[in-house]
């Protein structure tokens, strides 16, 4: 087996993930390289979910019975864990949503309905980038359409990085919000936050960071980022589906209007008018995804028990190895940075003119799960003039052996269609 510096003992960790024992297509060992789409769930998280439903399940807040108090303590305890995980100055800055997409829509809608100085209207501009996930494009397109604001974006360089050469023209005095991805799910690129934040602060624009592909893979410190909002999603970080997070700066959450209305988010309601609870509850209408928040807390415990810096080092070593091995495959072109520097562990590529659907399908027949398509980032495909890519993406339980299997699999694909 390949020995790389910085690797975790992935063989030991894999025992925590029941699904990694699965065999597919008549006895082929599962090689799961679709982690940027969703991560697998460790036994530790599944157990906590079971225990929640078997022992503590109740609706949260306001209950005076034992189960309601336990469920509330677990749910609010998960909030504490998230706050600590991202180094939030206050637990009240952590809002639970159903996924990162809801978190990003929440930001867009808060700004659309805000009073000055935050209000996005026809006099103002919104800035995103060409490498965003559709979930960080469409909410802003909708906001722009509905308010008359102008949507602008940073383009990409040929090697898959943000082109910030015209930053002063893109981010201007009219810019109210700059929203961009910390690590791209299609290119793998890790973006230079500081340069963007500096310019945004210069013009008084708010900054929203889509950390969906960062939170699972590296230490995340919202204070160091100096952003105003940070969004991420539980299912990509060993947590359950159905849970996302929006972190926002306290003053903003106090000033900005609510989005969804309903139970839990109110202070007092009459038929004529209502007042709202303080954040985070103001933004959590209805019965929240209680078990899922608790499960996310368990996932954070699990990640912390390994160490986010160690996970990052592991994936960095794997990425370095994978880039090297993939570039040995004839006709393979990496879409995105071709080194492991300033990049995450999702690697997109094309293989000659074999369509990614065919690449993915023939890999699947060998038990290798990758994702093919535009990865909810179609503008990137348009930018590079390709219909789609094949993407392999790693996580803490990925191994060099799996990368070898991928490379062998790709050879098989080439022969098959050759």
């Amino acid at each position: 087996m390949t020995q790389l510096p910085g690797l975790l003992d992935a063989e030991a960790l894999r025992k925590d993930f029941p699904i990694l024992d699965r065999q597919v297509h008549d006895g082929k060992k599962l090689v799961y390289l679709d982690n940027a789409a969703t991560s697998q769930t460790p036994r530790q998280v599944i157990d906590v979910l079971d225990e929640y439903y078997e022992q503590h399940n109740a609706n949260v807040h306001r209950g005076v019975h034992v189960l309601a108090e336990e469920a509330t303590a677990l749910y609010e305890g998960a909030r504490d864990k998230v706050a600590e995980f991202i180094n939030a100055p206050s637990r009240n800055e952590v809002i639970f949503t159903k996924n990162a997409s809801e978190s990003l829509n929440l930001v867009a809608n808060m700004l659309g309905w805000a009073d000055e100085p935050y209000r996005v209207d026809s006099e103002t501009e919104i800035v995103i980038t060409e490498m965003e996930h559709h979930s960080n494009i469409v909410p802003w397109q909708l906001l722009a359409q509905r308010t008359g604001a102008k949507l602008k974006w940073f383009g990409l360089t040929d090697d898959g990085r943000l082109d910030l050469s015209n930053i002063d023209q893109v981010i201007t005095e009219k810019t109210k919000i700059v929203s961009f991805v910390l690590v791209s799910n299609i290119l793998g690129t890790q973006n230079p936050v500081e340069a963007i934040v500096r310019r945004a602060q210069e013009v008084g624009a708010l900054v929203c960071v889509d950390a969906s592909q960062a939170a699972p893979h590296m230490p995340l410190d919202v204070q160091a980022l100096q952003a105003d909002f940070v969004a991420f999603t539980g299912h990509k970080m060993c947590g359950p589906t159905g849970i996302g997070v929006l972190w926002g700066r306290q003053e903003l959450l106090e000033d900005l209007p609510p989005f969804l209305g309903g139970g839990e988010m109110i202070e007092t309601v009459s038929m004529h008018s209502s007042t709202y609870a303080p954040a985070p509850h103001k933004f959590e209408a209805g019965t929240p995804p209680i078990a899922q928040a608790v499960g996310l807390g368990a996932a954070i415990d699990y990640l912390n028990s390994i160490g986010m810096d160690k996970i990052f080092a592991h994936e960095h070593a794997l990425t370095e190895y994978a880039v090297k091995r993939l570039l040995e495959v004839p006709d393979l072109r990496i879409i995105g940075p071709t080194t492991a520097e300033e990049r995450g562990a999702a690697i997109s590529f094309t293989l000659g003119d074999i369509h990614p659907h065919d690449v993915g399908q023939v890999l699947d027949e060998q038990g290798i799960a990758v994702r093919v398509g535009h990865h909810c980032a179609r503008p990137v495909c348009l930018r590079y003039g390709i219909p789609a890519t094949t993407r392999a993406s790693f996580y803490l339980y990925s191994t060099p052996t799996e990368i070898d299997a991928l490379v062998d699999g790709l050879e098989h694909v080439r022969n098959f269609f050759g």
Partner: protein
Amino acid sequence: MYQEVILDHYKNPHGRGLRDGDAEVHHVNPTCGDEITLRVKYDGATIEDVSYEGQGCSISQASASVLNELLVGKDLSDARKIQETFLELMQSKGKLEPDDAMEEILEDAVAFAGVSKYPARVKCALLSWMAWKDATAQALGEADAERKTTA
């Protein structure tokens, strides 16, 4: 799912290229970027030619080639029957075992039976067939044509 027949058609497509026609359509499959431009030429109710150009996965390319092979020279009503039978097979979710009668109608196209098990790929296999249906409707001036994402 990659039957020898499918790979053959993929590697050596039948009747590829755009030639003269009575109507042209352009269909895309937005989820994977498969595209096809397809022209039909009729001589009365007889299909004189189906010419096409496109890019996409082996399934969509091979399917277009099979379509050309099967439909050119056929009568419109026979062609419709073939198209409907192929649609039925593709929507069968792998549960339909083609019988002799079906094999007689579909010839090489029965090789796609395995594709019907893969929901993500069914659209690829159907792309050219939907384009043909649409182009035919246009060529024959049918008002009730069921238009898909024609750009």
